[in-house]
């Protein structure tokens, strides 16, 4: 557990240096995904978390390296490219799904979206879509989110 946290903290310290290489940005994205799980509640609480990353092989590798098999909320993380059940889906094409934390373009219906602001990785949220979904996302997390005008 300690080791994992140290890895994540290390990754987060890389935030300032992100943008310099796609690997470090992916590693920071992996850390973000890990923390997102802490602030999201699924109405059907899963026995393990499936993180699906079908499009971006580099990100999948980075996420898989740092999160695969780790425990969050006492549940194991599985990183896959495709699955019947995705608890977290990172993709440019996000289908409508009630029980999935979708990370992708907000205009295409995703709940969260990674954005780089001033060379730093941030995330945006679409409150309207979040309200419609069956997920509960903590206001603690949403306070940090970039909110689009129409949301």
């Amino acid at each position, binding site marked *: *557990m300690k080791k994992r*946290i140290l890895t994540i*903290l290390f990754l*987060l*310290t890389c*935030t*300032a240096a992100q943008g310099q290489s796609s690997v470090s940005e992916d590693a920071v994205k992996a850390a*973000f995904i890990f*923390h997102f799980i*802490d*602030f999201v509640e699924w109405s059907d609480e899963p026995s393990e978390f499936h993180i699906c990353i079908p499009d971006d092989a580099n990100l999948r590798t980075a996420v898989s390296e740092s999160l695969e098999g780790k425990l969050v*909320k006492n549940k194991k993380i599985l990183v896959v490219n495709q699955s019947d059940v995705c608890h977290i889906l990172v993709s440019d094409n996000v289908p409508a799904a009630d029980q999935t934390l979708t990370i992708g373009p907000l205009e295409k219906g995703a709940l969260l979206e990674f954005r780089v602001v001033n060379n*730093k990785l*941030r*995330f945006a949220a679409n409150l309207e879509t979040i309200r419609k979904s069956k997920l509960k996302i903590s206001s*603690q*997390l949403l*306070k*940090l989110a970039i909110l689009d005008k129409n949301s």
Partner: protein
Amino acid sequence: MKTAQPPIIKKIMLFGILSGAISLLLACVGFGIVEFYKIKSESLARVNSQIEILIYNLQPTLLFEDKEAADKILLSLQNAPSLNRVRIYKNDGREFTAYIRMDQDGDLKLTKSIQFEGRPLGRIEIESHYVGLRERYLTYALVSLLITIISIPCLFIISAPLRAQVGKSVAQLVETTEALKRSNQDLEQFAYVASHDLKAPLRGIASLVDWISSDYTDKLDDNGKEQLGLLAKRVRRMHDLIDGILQYSKVQRTKEEKTSVNFNELVKEVIDSMAVPEHIEVKIEGPLPTLLTPRIQMEQLFQNLLSNAVKFIDKPRGLIRINGTEEGDHWRFSIADNGPGIDSKYYEKIFQIFQTLASREETESTGVGLAIVKKIVENNGGKVWVESQVGSGTTFLFTLSKSTAVV
């Protein structure tokens, strides 16, 4: 007519007002201390709740390294005037962000670790000061001073009847004491003068008796000679009585200076000067102390006690034992004889002046000696008493304070 207040009343009045004012001030100080602790605990509770809120809000900012969001949260502290500084540190000890409202050390400094789901993220350091403490204390001081100033005349007015009553009693007491002192002085003076003046005609009578008995010895019959002998005896007794009264009044009148007196030596000297009859043995049994006392009075004391013992011993082998015992803060002296003893009902009476148990014809006693003993002992802060059983001898005991002991 209004009489001037005696100084004691002024002192009582001053003391009363002063103690009232001090009590009030103390009460105010007490309230001030209570208030201080109240402010302290309130501040602590406030800072603690501020920390909890901050930690809750700062958790995601530390997780996502979002300094801007953290700064926005800290900016909300503008509405908390008691905070001086807030610093947030990351797990590696580096400062993440800070809010500095007043760059000076606070009265209260708290540090708490920031955790999320049991994972350490960093720590928060918060420095705060007690808001309005100085103003509150200034108000307290002013109110206390005002109350004290107002209460002094109130105390003065309230205590007036009591003061008048006490004043009256004290004035009466002073008057009575003065009268008593004067009367005592007059009495002593009278005793001294009367005794002194009586001695001269008495000496004249004694001389006349002498002349008559020598000039008219062939003209007087046996009856006349016997009557003249009785007259001479009565004159001698009267002389002794007058001497006793003189000594008694002298104890009170003379202010003798205290000197270092070695009682072993003093008692020996007294015994030597007394010409104790051969059949009586006087023994100093224990080592006696050296005390700071009036020497002549101590001589008189032992002289009277020893001559009293010598006078009454009725045994063929008389024994007088002198002892000194250290007891707490005093020394206890005892003079024990193997004389006839005294019935317990006379224990008090024997110390009264002119009181003799045996008839004057038997003992030639004046009844002044033990009264002088009592006066000397009491004048020196001690007490005197007798322990005795008829037929088993008598022990006279007296105490002298150890504080006068010479090391």
